[in-house]
């Protein structure tokens, strides 16, 4: 479903992502972890077509993001770290706008909009202008919009920011249900507990390089530490000492 093929992205002299090769199959929930500035957001921007790789290819459902961005976007749902809405549109109007942009038939769009409004409990404010929404309300609306067209791949950049515990539960349940149905989820997060609870595999990026790729159990085995907490393992792997050559690798 998602393929990064020897992808490198540079910002001037700085390499943000170095030779990333990664394949995420259908129905997997993948969590990308890493400290600030590790290259997670750059990876996500390449995955949704906002950035072009300096070298290599990114494909979603077989479509190259540079050569066939529109076809690829039909398969992608994207929840950015900062939700972007039109202040002067209501939540319902925004959902219609997105459904129209994806060329959804009217009856299907109407059905899906009603269902997502109910699912994300947006009914109370769906007909208010978005300028009056809190960050959590905006985030829920963006989640609803990203799922309208039933994408094969859902890309989430820090998805839990601004959500209250009830909304977090809704999102977690939804991700579990959708991945069971075959949707692939690529999630960047700093919430290690969520990654531990939800992810089939995790990737840990440090300074543009994928330092670890596998399950949390594999990480424990590889690190051969007494601790079993993901937090401790993560801190160990991303510490400046771990950056020394030969200490660990993907």
């Amino acid at each position, binding site marked *: *479903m998602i393929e990064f093929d020897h992808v490198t*992205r*540079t*910002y*001037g002299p*700085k390499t943000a992502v170095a030779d990333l090769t990664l394949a995420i199959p259908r129905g997997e929930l993948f969590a990308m972890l890493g400290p600030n500035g590790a290259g997670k957001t750059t990876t996500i*921007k390449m995955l*949704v*077509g*906002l*950035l*072009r790789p300096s070298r290599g290819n990114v494909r979603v*459902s*077989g*479509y190259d993001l*540079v050569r066939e*961005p*529109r*076809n690829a*976007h*039909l*398969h*992608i749902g*994207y929840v*950015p770290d*900062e939700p*972007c809405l*039109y*202040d*002067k*549109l209501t939540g319902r*109007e925004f959902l219609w*706008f*997105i459904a*129209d*942009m*994806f*060329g*959804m038939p009217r009856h*299907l769009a109407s059905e*899906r909009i009603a269902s997502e409004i109910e699912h994300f409990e947006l009914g109370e404010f769906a007909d208010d*202008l978005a*300028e009056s929404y809190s960050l959590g309300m905006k985030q829920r609306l963006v989640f609803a919009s990203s799922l309208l*067209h*039933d*994408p*094969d791949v859902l890309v989430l950049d820090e998805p839990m920011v601004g959500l209250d515990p009830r909304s977090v539960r809704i999102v977690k349940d939804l991700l579990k249900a959708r991945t069971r149905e075959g949707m692939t989820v690529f999630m960047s997060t700093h919430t290690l507990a969520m990654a531990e609870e939800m992810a089939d595999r995790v990737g840990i990026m440090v300074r543009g390089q994928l330092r670890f790729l596998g399950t949390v159990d594999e990480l424990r085995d590889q690190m051969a530490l007494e601790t079993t907490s993901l937090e401790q393992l993560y801190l160990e792997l991303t510490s400046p000492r771990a950056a020394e050559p030969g200490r660990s690798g993907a």
Partner: protein
Amino acid sequence: MTPLPQSCRLLPHEAESRIFLRLRGRVAWATVRSMLSGARLRLSLVVLLSAMFWGSLYGLFFEAFTFLDSLHAEVISLLFNAFFSSLMVMLVFSTGILLYGGMYCSPEAKLLLTLPIREEAVFSHKFQEAVWFSSWGFILLGSPMLVAYGVVRDASWTYFALLLPFMVSFVVIPATLGGIFCMLMVAWMPRLRLHAMTVAGTAVGAGLIWMVWSSFSVSRADTMSAAWFEQTFARLSVTEQKLFPSWWLSSGLIEAARKDEGAAAGWPALAEALKFLALLIANGMLLQLVAGWLAARSYRLGYSQLTGEVPARRRRRISWIDQALVNAGTAAGRPLRLLVVKDLRLFRRDISQWSQFVIFFGLLGLYFLNVRSFNYNNTYASMIGFLNLAVVGLILSTFTTRFVFPMISLEGRRFWILGLLPVHRDHIVWSKFLFSFVGGLLPCCGLVLLSDVMLGLSQRTMVIHEIACLMLCLGLSGIAVGLGARMPDLREPSPSKIASGFGGTLSLVISSLFIMVIVVIAALPNHLFLISHAFGPPGGPQRGLLAWAAGPGGTIASMALVVAIGLVATFVPLFLGLRSFRELEP
């Protein structure tokens, strides 16, 4: 490769355009509805003042065209060409800059580029938005001028019906060119774009300086003579190139307004006008095709290039001026001074602000330095002196509207910082006022003094001008800061959009009216005095209201009125702004 999903599909061109049209319609309707429900008074005031502004401009142009109508028709053509060609250059720049912000730096662009739509559809959507923002000034200034021209020429209804199509089709051409330059620069010259902008800006600035310099660098004896007119026409004829859209526009409008003798004689002129309109539309459409083609190939590339740029890290040291300003005065005033220094620092580091400040006031200074080359008599010199005062005020008002008015709105976005500081909210408003007033006072009073010295005006007139200039600086700062605090737009991050919104427009209209009132009141006694001496009985009028108005009594009264109006214009908006800002809930 996974087949395309059943639930969605790629849209044809027309469907994408329809969706964007619907989006804009909904956003516009929601904006109008919220204004009608929450700010009827404000809306009425803006409409009323805009109508007054339009009416005043119409009156001014009507008089000017009535005077020029007696001259050769070529004069009108030359003036139209000069006006529209300079407008064309400005539209290329302003639309290019607005498109740069809208297509590459806005959160909306980030959303749209992750949807399965064509890049050219996004360009077209952002282009229409940029054209609206860049050309409303042209419509506001151009429409009274062109309507006045039609009325003076006694043009038929077809001229008035064709005005809007002519203006819109003309605007599209420079605006599209601006868009094309913007996309080319971002996609293929990302590193050079700042240099390219600097070179282009310098070239335009140098061209303007050359035009101003060469227009006035003739000997005093030749001024206003036939030779002077010929030389000036020869210089301005640069704008009469037949390949310029500005020439097509002015020729089309002149043809449309032409009324030949005989019932059917108007038809050839109308056909000629329609030919020019068709030329404008065809070229606009062709350029739109080119821009769409370019957007399809370069937009994502450019966006990616720009997003991938790392801003250069530069160490900034605290300048001695900032340090001196912070340390000067009492400890109680320190928070206020710190806020002023912060604004001064932001101004210094924002090239778009200080470069415009330098260019406009620099050009004005250059013109004032050359104003001596005109051989004015006393009456004319005095009138030119007051007109120069008005011009200085008008330029200052564009700065206060464009840069000072949005300051409070932009501060509101950082309210979480300021709200936690031990600073009274009033200090924030007062700091903006001080920054604007002191920043405007030195160049404006300096320029007015320069103009007066070059015109050889009396000391009495100089004092009058300086007092009026002081009141203009106070009042314009008070209006911009007060209205900025009274009508903040805390959600809009772009200062240009804040300035071109309702509050900014209102600020500009009130500022312009204020300048007119101040200059007219200040000029009246002086003018009466000169007229009575020039045309009245020897020694001037002896008795009556005219004698009093033209004498020292009239001058003192007019100055008192100027000071009173200046203080009202300063403190009423400031008081309203302070009261509103104290209660502001971000």
